[in-house]
C-alpha cells in the first residue's frame, strides 16, 4: 500500500482566522470558558476580594499571551529546540538545589533578579518533549535500551524535583514522561512488569519520603485519626462538597467556604468551594469543559502528522487529564493530598502559565499541519 504525499501550501485565507493566528478555536473557547468559570469561583473563595481577581486576571493574561506566542512556533522549531531546553532545565534544577530560595519550606525557586522562576514548571513541558524527541528519532515501539534511556530522561529531573521537595510536580512530570512512552508503544508485558516493580518499590519509597509526605498518606488512608490536625483539610472539604448537594448552596453562600472552615480554599482546595456553592451540576459543567479539552487534545494527537508531535500532543493532553483528576480526587478524599492546584482555576502559581504554554504547543501542532490528500 502506497500513500502519496502531496503537500500543499495551505491557503490561510481559506481556513480562517484560527489558522492565521495559529489558534485552535474549540480549545481556545473551552479554555476561556474554564478561566471565566474559575474567576467566578475564585471571587467567592477569596471572600469577595477584587484585588485577588485582578492579580489572577493579570496571570491569565500572561498565560494566554504565552500560549499565543508558543503557538506561532512550528513543531519543527520546537523539536529542534527540545534537547537544549531539556539540558537548560536540568541545569536550572541543579542551580535550584544548590542555591535556590526556600519558600514555604521547599526549595523550588530560582531568583533571576527580575522574576522568581520555578525550573520545575519548565520541566513539565521539557520532559515529555525530550522523551518524545528521543523516541521519535527511532522506530516504534521502543526497544529495551531505548526504554531504559527514556526512563533515565524522566527519572533524573523527577528525582531532582522530588528532592526540593515537590511531590505533586514530580508526579505530574513522571506521568507526562510515562504517557510518551506508553503512546510510543510500551509493551504490555513490560508495563505489567514495571507495575509490579513499582508496587514492590513502594516500601522503599516510603522510606525516602519526608515526614510530611508520609503524614499525607496516613491522613489519606484515615483522615478521622487526626480531625484537628492533618485530617482537617480532607474532612472539611468533604463536608463542603457533600453539603453542596445537587444544586449547591449558591454563589457566595457556601458556609464552609465563607466562614473559613475550608483551608486553602482559593488554592488547592478551590474545587470544594465549587462543589459547595454550585453543587453536583456545577461540577458537571466544569468536568464537561475539562473533558472537552482532553478530548480535543486527543483529536489533535490523532490528527498530528509526525511521531514527535503525536507523542507530545497525546502526553500533554493526558497530563492535563491527570492533573485535574488528581486534584479533584484529592479534594474529594479519594487520593492523598499531594499539593496540586486545580488547573486553570486555583489562584496563583506559575503553573497556569506552564499549562497555557502547553496548550500553545497543542495549537501549534494542530495549526501547522500540512494538508494531506489521499
Amino acid at each position, binding site marked *: 500500500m502506497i500513500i502519496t504525499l502531496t503537500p500543499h501550501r495551505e491557503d490561510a485565507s481559506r481556513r480562517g482566522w484560527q489558522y492565521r493566528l495559529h489558534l485552535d478555536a474549540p480549545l481556545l473557547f473551552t479554555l476561556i470558558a474554564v478561566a471565566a468559570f474559575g474567576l467566578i469561583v475564585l471571587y467567592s473563595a477569596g471572600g469577595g476580594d477584587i484585588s485577588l481577581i485582578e492579580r489572577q486576571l493579570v496571570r491569565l493574561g500572561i498565560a494566554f499571551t504565552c500560549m499565543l506566542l508558543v503557538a506561532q512556533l512550528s513543531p519543527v522549531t520546537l523539536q529542534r529546540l527540545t534537547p537544549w531546553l531539556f539540558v537548560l532545565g536540568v541545569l536550572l534544577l541543579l542551580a535550584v538545589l544548590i542555591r535556590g530560595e526556600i519558600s514555604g519550606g521547599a526549595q523550588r525557586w530560582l531568583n533571576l533578579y527580575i522574576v522568581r522562576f520555578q525550573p520545575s514548571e519548565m520541566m513539565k513541558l521539557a520532559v515529555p518533549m525530550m522523551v518524545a524527541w528521543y523516541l521519535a528519532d527511532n522506530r516504534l515501539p521502543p526497544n529495551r535500551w531505548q526504554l531504559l534511556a527514556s526512563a533515565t530522561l524522566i527519572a533524573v529531573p523527577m528525582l531532582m524535583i522530588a528532592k526540593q521537595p515537590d511531590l505533586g510536580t514530580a508526579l505530574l512530570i513522571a506521568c507526562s514522561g510515562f504517557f510518551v512512552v506508553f503512546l*510510543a508503544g510500551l509493551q504490555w508485558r513490560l508495563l505489567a512488569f514495571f507495575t509490579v516493580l513499582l508496587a514492590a518499590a513502594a516500601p522503599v519509597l516510603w522510606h525516602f519520603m519526608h515526614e510530611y509526605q508520609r503524614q499525607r498518606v496516613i491522613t489519606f488512608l484515615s483522615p478521622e485519626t487526626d480531625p484537628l490536625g492533618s485530617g482537617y483539610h480532607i474532612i472539611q472539604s468533604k463536608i463542603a*462538597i457533600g453539603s453542596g448537594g445537587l444544586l449547591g448552596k449558591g454563589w457566595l453562600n457556601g458556609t464552609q467556604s465563607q466562614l473559613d472552615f475550608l483551608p486553602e480554599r482559593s488554592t488547592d482546595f478551590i474545587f470544594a468551594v465549587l462543589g459547595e456553592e454550585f453543587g453536583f451540576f456545577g461540577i458537571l459543567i466544569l468536568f464537561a469543559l475539562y473533558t472537552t479539552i*482532553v478530548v480535543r487534545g486527543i483529536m489533535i494527537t490523532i490528527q498530528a502528522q509526525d511521531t514527535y508531535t503525536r507523542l507530545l500532543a497525546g502526553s500533554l493532553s493526558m497530563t492535563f487529564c491527570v492533573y485535574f483528576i488528581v486534584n479533584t480526587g484529592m479534594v474529594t478524599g479519594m487520593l492523598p493530598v499531594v499539593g496540586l492546584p486545580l488547573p486553570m482555576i486555583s489562584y496563583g502559581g506559575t503553573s497556569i502559565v506552564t499549562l497555557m504554554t502547553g496548550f500553545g504547543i497543542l495549537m501549534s501542532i494542530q495549526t501547522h499541519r500540512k494538508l494531506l490528500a489521499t
Partner: protein
Amino acid sequence: MARQITLKDHFFESRLVMNRAILLLVGGGILLAALLARLLYLQVYAHEHFTTLSEDNRVKLQAIAPNRGLIYDRNGILLAENLPSYRLEITPEQIDDMDATLAALGEIIEIRDSDLSRFEKLRKRKTRFEAVPLRFHLSDDEVARFSVNRHRFPGVDIAAGLARHYPQGSLAVHALGYVGRIDEKALQELDSSNYRGTTHIGKIGIEKTYESVLHGQVGFQHVETTAQGRVIRVLSRTPPVSGRNLYLTIDSRVQAAAEQAFGDHTGSAIAIDPNNGDILAFVSLPTYDPNPFVNGIEYDDYAALRNDDRQPLFNRALRGQYPPGSTIKPFIGLAGLEQGVTTSHSSTYCPGFYSLPGNSRKFRDWKHTGHGTVDLNKAIVQSCDVYFYDLALSLGIDRMHSYLQNFGFGNASGIDILGELPGLLPSRSWKRARHDQPWFPGETIITGIGQGFFLVTPVQLATATAALANGGRLLQPNIVHAEQESNRNDLLPHRPRIRDTISVIDQQHWDDIIKAMTDVVHSARGTARRIGEDSPYKIAGKTGTAQVYGLKQEEKYDAESIPEELRDHALFIAFAPVEAPQIAVAVIIEHGGGGGSIAAPIARAIIDAYLQESPP
C-alpha cells in the same frame, strides 16, 4: 526501498499512537467515572449527613451566663456586687510556642507561678479551641499595656466579664460567705445545663445557701461562627434570667458596731429581732476578706488562714458549740416555776457549795463564801449556782430536757445558712445511746448551771433569748429579709416562721424571770450592772461564764482538774427594751473571762447601735 519501509513505519506508528491515545482516553474516562461516582456519593447519597456536619460547624450554641443576684443589707447597703473585670485569655489552638508566648507576656503583665499552674490546670479541662484564662482582674494599666502589644500575641485576648466583689470586705463574711470557681466536685452536683457558661458558684454562707436564687437561669444563643470560633452573627437568642437580689436582715451598721466592739477578742455575737426572727447582726470573729477567694486564693495566704490559731475561717456563730454556763439560768428558773417545782418566793440557803445527800462530793458556787438565803430573783441577779443546783435536782433531767427543748436547745435553729450545728441538750436516752451509761444525778446538777454535756451555739442562744423576750414564740431565725427580681422594684419578703409556741402556764412566771434579768443589768447587785448605769432603755440580761474544758464532752466533771491557763468563756444574753423588745442578743467571747465585764458591754454596744442609730 528504504523509503517504503519508512512509509510503512509511519503508518504503523500513526495507528499505534492513535490506538494508545484512545486507550488513555478510555482510561481517563474510567477515572472520571469513578470521580463522578464519588461525587454522587458525597453530594447525593450522603448529602444530608454532610449538611448536618456543615450546620454543626457553622452554628454553635453558646450559653449566656446570667448575672448573679446582688446582696444588700436590710437598709439597701451593697454587700456583694458584680464588678466588670478584665481577664487575659489564651486560645491554645492559635499558639505555636506556648512557653515563648507566656514568657513574652510575662514581660508586659505580671504573671505569677500560681497563675501559671492554674492556667495549666484549666487548660487540661478545655479543648484547644477554647480560651483559657491566664490572669484575672487586670488593672487598667495592664489592659493598656497589653492592648499596645496585642499584635505580638495572636491567640491572646482580653475578655471582659463580671466578677463577684464584696465591697464591705470582711464585714459579716461568715454570714455572707463567698463564691469561687466551680470545681470538679461541684460540677457533678450541679444542674449542668443551667451552669453552662457559669464559672463561679456559692461556696459557703448565704452565697451557697441561696445559690439557686442568686444564680438565675442560663440563656442561650445560636451563633454563626468562623472556624476560629469568632462570632459572625447571632441567629437566635434566649436571654438569661438574672438571679434575684437578696436583701439580708442584717443591719450592716449594727454588724460593724458589733465587730468593732469585740476589739481583738475571739468569739461570736448574734442579734435577732424577737418579733420576727430577723438576724440583725451575725458576728464570728476573727473574720477574713472573702475577695481573694473569688478567683482562687493564693496557697500561702490560704495556709496562713488555716494555720492561724484563732481560726478565722471557723464560723463560730453557726458551728461554735459552747457550754451556755449561767446564761441558762433564766430558762431553768422558768422551767422550775412553770412546772411547779418552785415559786418566786421560795428560797434556798447558799453556803458556797452544794452536795448531794449521802455524798461527800461538793459542787462549788462561784462565790466561795456563799450568797446566804437566795430566792429565784436573787439567784438570777447574783447568779447563785447553789440555788440552781438544787432546782435542777428537783426538776430532774427529764423535765429540764423537755422544757429546754421548747426553747430550741439541742436542735438546729433552722437559720437559712448551711452548715449549722445542733448543739447538745443532754438527756437520759442521749447518754445511753452516746456513752452507753446511765444518767447520774451529779450530771443533772451541773446541767442546771449550763455545764457538763450541755452545748449551745450562739444562734441557738440568741433564738432562745428572743423566745424569752417575745413571750414564748420560738422563731426560726432568718437572714434573708426579701428577694427581688432583677429589674423590678418590688420586694418579695420572706415571711417570719414560728417554729413552736411555748405554752405559758402563768404569765407572772415569765414576768418574774424577765424582772430578774432586768435586775441583772439595772440593780445594784446585778452581775451586769455596769452596762445598766447609763442605759437610756431597760435591758434584760444574764451573764455567763463557761468553763473551757467543757468542750470535751467525754471528760468527767472534776473542778479540780481545770488547767489554769485555759480561761473561761464569757457569755451574755440580753434583750431590750424590756417593755417592748426589739432586739435580743447573745454574745460569747472565747477565753474572755467574766461575762459581766467583757461580754455585756459588747451586747450593750450592739443594742445601742440598733436602737439608737436605726430607730424602727
